């Protein structure tokens, strides 16, 4: 496992893409959050507004996660990987761990940057010393990590970057958009409570969360776990 981790880390740092995508995550999250905090007139929930950039910042995270394994299928290096590390569960775990670590670091930078931007823009900014704000911030980092794992799982299952990116972005953004048109509040709540993005980002609310914040994050975790499990089982069962 240690060796597989070392190899995955070397893989990531010997190409330029992951670094740019992680920087993109930080930049997109902070920039979008800064715009939101500067245009919003009545921030009912300053923490949530400051962290709204995660809506956009999660996209490069998802792309990075998909490319981590989808890129190997694209170039064929996945066979080399599995020749070097024949136990496939180890390969997937090593990728998941490496990815989680990187996204956690980038996510923390993104969240801290967004809070600082919010501090400049909002009349009544949030402070990390508040329990709910701390929860929202840590929860957002955790959320980004879970989205990365979801992407990794999906891409492992479909073995193609483009398809994987399409599926993950659809999974993320479809419910926030579609639920606007769902007339019945019961259905609307149901959809928002089971979709990975709307449920998981409930953790950002500090005033009036639409659902229990940790339960929401658990829904996202469920998606990530299901995707990783499906991907892992297929990786185990299929010829490489």
């Amino acid at each position, binding site marked *: 496992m240690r060796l*597989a981790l070392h190899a995955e880390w070397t893989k990531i740092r010997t190409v330029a893409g992951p670094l740019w995508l992680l920087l993109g995550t930080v930049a997109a999250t902070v920039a979008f959050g800064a715009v939101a905090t500067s245009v919003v007139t009545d921030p009912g929930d300053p923490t949530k507004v400051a962290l709204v950039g995660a809506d956009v910042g999660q996209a490069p995270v998802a792309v990075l996660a998909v490319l981590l394994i989808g890129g190997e299928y694209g170039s064929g290096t996945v066979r080399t990987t599995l*020749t070097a590390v024949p136990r496939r569960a180890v390969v997937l775990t090593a990728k998941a761990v490496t990815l989680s670590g990187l996204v956690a670091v980038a996510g923390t930078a993104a969240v801290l940057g967004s809070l600082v931007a919010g501090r400049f823009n909002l009349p009544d900014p949030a402070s990390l010393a508040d329990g709910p704000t701390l929860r929202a911030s840590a929860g957002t980092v955790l959320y980004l990590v879970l989205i990365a794992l979801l992407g990794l799982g999906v891409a492992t299952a479909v073995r193609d970057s483009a398809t994987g990116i399409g599926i993950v972005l659809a999974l993320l953004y479809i419910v926030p958009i579609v639920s606007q048109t769902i007339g019945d509040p019961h259905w609307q709540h149901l959809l928002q409570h089971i979709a990975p993005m709307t449920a998981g980002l409930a953790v950002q609310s500090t005033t009036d969360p639409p659902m229990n914040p940790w339960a929401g994050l658990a829904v996202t975790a469920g998606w990530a776990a299901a995707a990783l499990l499906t991907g892992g089982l297929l990786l185990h069962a299929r010829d490489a």
Partner: protein
Amino acid sequence: MSPLQTANAPGIVVAGLRKRYRAAPALDGMSFTVRPGVVTGFLGPNGAGKSTTMRVILGLDAVEEGSALINGRPYRRLRRPLTHVGALLDASALHPGRSGRGHLLWLAHSQGLDARRVDQVIEQVGLATAARRKAGGYSLGMRQRLGIAAALLGDPPIVMLDEPFNGMDPDGIIWLRGFLRSLATQGRAVLVSSHLMSEMQDTADHLVVAGHGRAIADAAMADLIAAASRDRVVLRTTAGADATSVLIRAGATVAATGRDTVTVSGLPANRIVALLNAGAVPFSEVSAHRATLEDVYLELTREAVEFHAATPGAPR
């Protein structure tokens, strides 16, 4: 060899592999052995199961029946597998944005090896000048060299290369031929697949010929050549038709093999000379036939390449 010896045998032991893709059998009882100190050539028409066998040996593809063992153990159970087997399957399988050295570096790290070993193999395959460039810009020959470097990384006792001569320039081919020989001389087991007959004939000591998902030959190169050359005589004559009728009447099998040459089997050379002289058939040369690998291959796979004539799934 007894089963116990087989299980512990050094090298690769492939036994009774069976695998289907949808309905069509891809492997149908593939069995052979790759021994240390010997270059084993792996020949066969497309679709005969060569690449599938190599992927099965490396634990990439699963089989329904049979086993492929590396020094007595299945590949997936090896710790630091690249120190047991080095393999080159698809030289183009590279991340285009990663340097050749970066590619070898992550492989090395996966086996607990360090950057010094990476630089050694880069030197060994003659890729030192290009190693830090992005692999996306490599020529096919450079990719082959990088793939070979990857196979050598763990200093493995077994080396397995799929079509390593592809895309190599003449210098590269000469280098690779000598290189493979030297690997065997060092006592390593070497399995090389190639469709370049002449390269194989000059390089391999032992030959496995695949057809219909089985090994239809598994023998020393010298024996196969000798067997294919057996009691055949090449006759050079401008009167091919006359010669043929005279010799067939005497019980020989005659096949036209060139513009003014025929190959005769079933009769010794001195008898042929006597018959031709008696029939007043002119000829310029009678010589014992020396088979090439191509002859061996064509003879062995004649049935295999005519796969369209056989009903799939029919008893063999």
